[in-house]
């Protein structure tokens, strides 16, 4: 059978395959269906708002700059997305098609056609339509707009495919999946950058974009939309060159993609190759750590917990987020002059959250722990060691953040009480964390960016929010004492008492919480294992 006769049938087949995958994925669970519908509605609503905005922009002096930038950002998004969400599209993984007798060229076009199905492409189409409407003036411009829009869409999709195919080794390896877990952080940082940029634009106008747009209008896929603007201004030559640039880019991308696809399909899969990597470096650095830790179960558990903070992508992402937010909120508020020293407690609160769902962080490997816990005493030592591992990082960090906030505010007199409150809050978080770990464990899926397995969201909410409210209530005595010392006459002189008082209170309730959580843990081992083994 020649490639020519296979070609016409292949594209519809692959498109149908993609539709079936989509449909079957949705059929698996109601939650997933709801999430998909919700995200589709959100994306389309957002796209519709953008469309209205873009239409409103029609005739604006700097409309073309914004539109070109928008299309460039869209293109960038398409290039980056497959790196972070590789599992989102199974047809994106050509290694799954290796066993089929297909030639690369028809396959490339068929896969390109399949890529056009989905929310992402629909969103892009709406944005491109809006962009064309915003800048096209006259019949010729609209005609070019249709061509340019289609071209821009194809470049976006081909870009995503080419990037994914070139990096499929990375994406299907462990390191690639680890990377995907950190994508949430990238998106959060990206949102901050966009926010910052939007604020600057809001204050100084769209004219700021012009120099950037002057460069971008020559780069695909933005050049396809730039061509529409050029036609509107009567520069047909420029428009032709811009269209040609995009078309050339499309051909180039498809060729690149086709080449890496061919290479992928005729060379063995990375996972079946015996890993010929050099023997991993000797992890002798850890030996020093071991010496500092106590012996027995405590030291063993602490060592593993601390290693996991660094090595497990999910745990690491959670820690980095907590550390960052715990620092940013009090310090930025202090910098902006709206801060209060009590915001420093935020660090203790954020880091205390890491005590929640301790066994969920173990995943189903919890069986190794379960098999060695045969009494409430074992469970107590286990939980205490996990709390200690957490304190190794949290105590110095929360102290540092409190001191830093105090220094920024110059309110040294209040340092003892802020520190005391932080310690009391930390103790309350540890005690509620230990208790909810035993009572409301839930799974943390290792793949992807979700932190709760489907069907356990309610459990996670109860665990975290119930725990946080209880922690606040547990802190009430220390908070009440702080307020009383401030309102009573001569009380201010005694606020330093809050530092030892808060520390003792925090330590006391932590020990009490661990004592209460231990027998529950020991009695519920099979139930905890079942709860953390989903996903």
């Amino acid at each position, binding site marked *: 059978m020649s490639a020519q006769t296979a070609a016409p049938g292949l594209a519809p087949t692959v498109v149908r395959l993609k539709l079936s995958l989509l449909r079957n994925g949705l059929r698996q669970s109601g939650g997933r269906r709801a999430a998909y519908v919700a995200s589709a509605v959100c994306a389309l609503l957002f796209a519709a708002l953008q469309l209205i905005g873009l239409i409103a922009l029609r005739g604006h002096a700097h409309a073309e700059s914004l539109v070109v930038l928008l299309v460039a950002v869209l293109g960038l998004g398409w290039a980056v997305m497959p790196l972070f969400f590789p599992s989102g599209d199974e047809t994106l993984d050509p290694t799954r098609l290796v066993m089929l007798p297909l030639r690369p060229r028809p396959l490339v076009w068929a896969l390109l056609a399949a890529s056009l199905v989905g929310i992402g492409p629909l969103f892009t189409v709406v944005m491109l339509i809006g962009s064309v409407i915003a800048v096209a003036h006259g019949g010729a411009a609209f005609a070019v707009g249709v061509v340019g829009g289609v071209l821009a869409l194809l470049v976006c999709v081909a870009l995503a495919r080419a990037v994914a195919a070139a990096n499929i080794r990375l994406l299907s390896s462990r390191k690639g999946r680890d990377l995907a877990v950190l994508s949430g952080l990238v998106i959060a940082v990206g949102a901050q950058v966009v926010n910052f940029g939007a604020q600057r634009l809001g204050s100084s106008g769209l004219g700021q974009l012009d120099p950037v747009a002057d460069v971008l209008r020559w780069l695909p896929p933005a050049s396809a939309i730039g061509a529409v603007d050029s036609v509107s201004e009567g520069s047909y030559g420029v428009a032709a060159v811009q269209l040609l640039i995009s078309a050339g880019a499309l051909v180039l991308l498809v060729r690149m993609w086709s080449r890496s696809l061919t290479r992928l399909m005729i060379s063995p899969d990375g996972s079946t190759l015996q*890993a010929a990597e050099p023997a*991993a470096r000797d992890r002798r650095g850890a030996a020093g750590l071991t010496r500092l830790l106590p012996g027995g179960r405590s030291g063993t558990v602490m060592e*593993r917990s601390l*290693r996991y903070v660094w090595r497990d992508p999910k745990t690491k992402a959670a820690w980095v987020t907590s550390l960052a937010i715990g620092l940013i909120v009090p310090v930025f508020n202090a910098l902006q002059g709206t801060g209060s020293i009590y915001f420093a407690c935020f660090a203790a609160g954020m880091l205390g959250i890491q005590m929640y769902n301790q066994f969920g962080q173990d995943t189903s490997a919890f069986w190794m722990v379960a098999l060695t816990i045969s009494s409430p005493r074992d469970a107590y030592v286990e939980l205490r060691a996990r709390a200690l591992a957490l304190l190794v990082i949290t105590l110095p960090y929360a102290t540092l953040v409190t001191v830093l906030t105090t220094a920024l505010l110059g309110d040294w007199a209040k340092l003892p009480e802020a520190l005391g409150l932080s310690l009391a809050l930390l103790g309350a978080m540890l005690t509620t964390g230990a208790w909810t770990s035993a009572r409301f464990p839930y799974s943390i899926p290792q793949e992807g960016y979700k932190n709760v397995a489907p069907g356990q969201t309610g459990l996670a909410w109860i665990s975290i929010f119930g725990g946080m409210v209880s922690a606040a209530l547990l802190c009430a005595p220390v908070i009440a004492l702080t307020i009383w010392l401030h309102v009573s006459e001569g009380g201010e002189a005694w606020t330093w008492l809050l530092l030892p008082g808060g520390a003792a209170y925090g330590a006391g309730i932590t020990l009490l919480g661990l004592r209460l959580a231990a027998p529950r843990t020991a009695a519920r081992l099979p139930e905890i294992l079942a709860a953390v083994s989903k996903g």
Partner: protein
Amino acid sequence: MTSVRVRNLWKRFGQQVAVAGIDLDLPAGKFIGLVGPNGAGKTTTLSMVTGLLRPDEGTVEVVGHDVWRDPVEVKARIGVLPEGLRLFERLSGRELLGYSGRLRGLPGAEVDKRATQLLDVLDLAGAQHKLVVDYSTGMRKKIGLAAALLHNPEVLFLDEPFEGVDPVSAQTIRGVLERYTASGATVVFSSHVMELVESLCDWVAVMAAGRIRAHGPLEEVRGSAPSLQEAFLQLVGAQGRDAGSDLDWLGGGAVR
């Protein structure tokens, strides 16, 4: 002497009955195979016997101690290699053994000595500093076996220890297990590969649809059948099912 005594063991998952009333006495010092087709309830049974899953009903005793009432005595005496559960994969092979051994209260120096020997025997010395997450299936089974053996248990429970394992690793695992039972310890392992069970075990229990269909010394269960495979097919009533009669088009020679 009995190493494991199971009485009236039941487990339901919603509507489905996974284990429907098992009574079983496993002799000590034997290489015991728990065989059955996929979905027979082997994993559920082993999970309940090792205390990882709470039974709906019934009792389990291991070396004379109740698994649920006397976990202190039982957990120190058993080694487990479960199927479908993770290990602490972000530790290296050596770190995992160190962690597991110390968690069981063995002295650190002893753990390190045993770990070195186990890694050598199981052919993992070259990969001991690699993270377990980067191990192949066979290597994972071997490191799991090492972790299960480290504290020298009296009874070893292995769920599908040879599933997905290459012949070389399988031979290594086999050698270690044979040496271990020769010293009087008990190995209970599940499998659906009859040839393997037949060549390894001296005592078998056949499971199907949540029940024990037959149990006893290998020769007894095999009876007059030429192989355990045949005896097993007779027991579960799957014999004589001819899959070929409807597939008359299947065969070489024709184009399509």
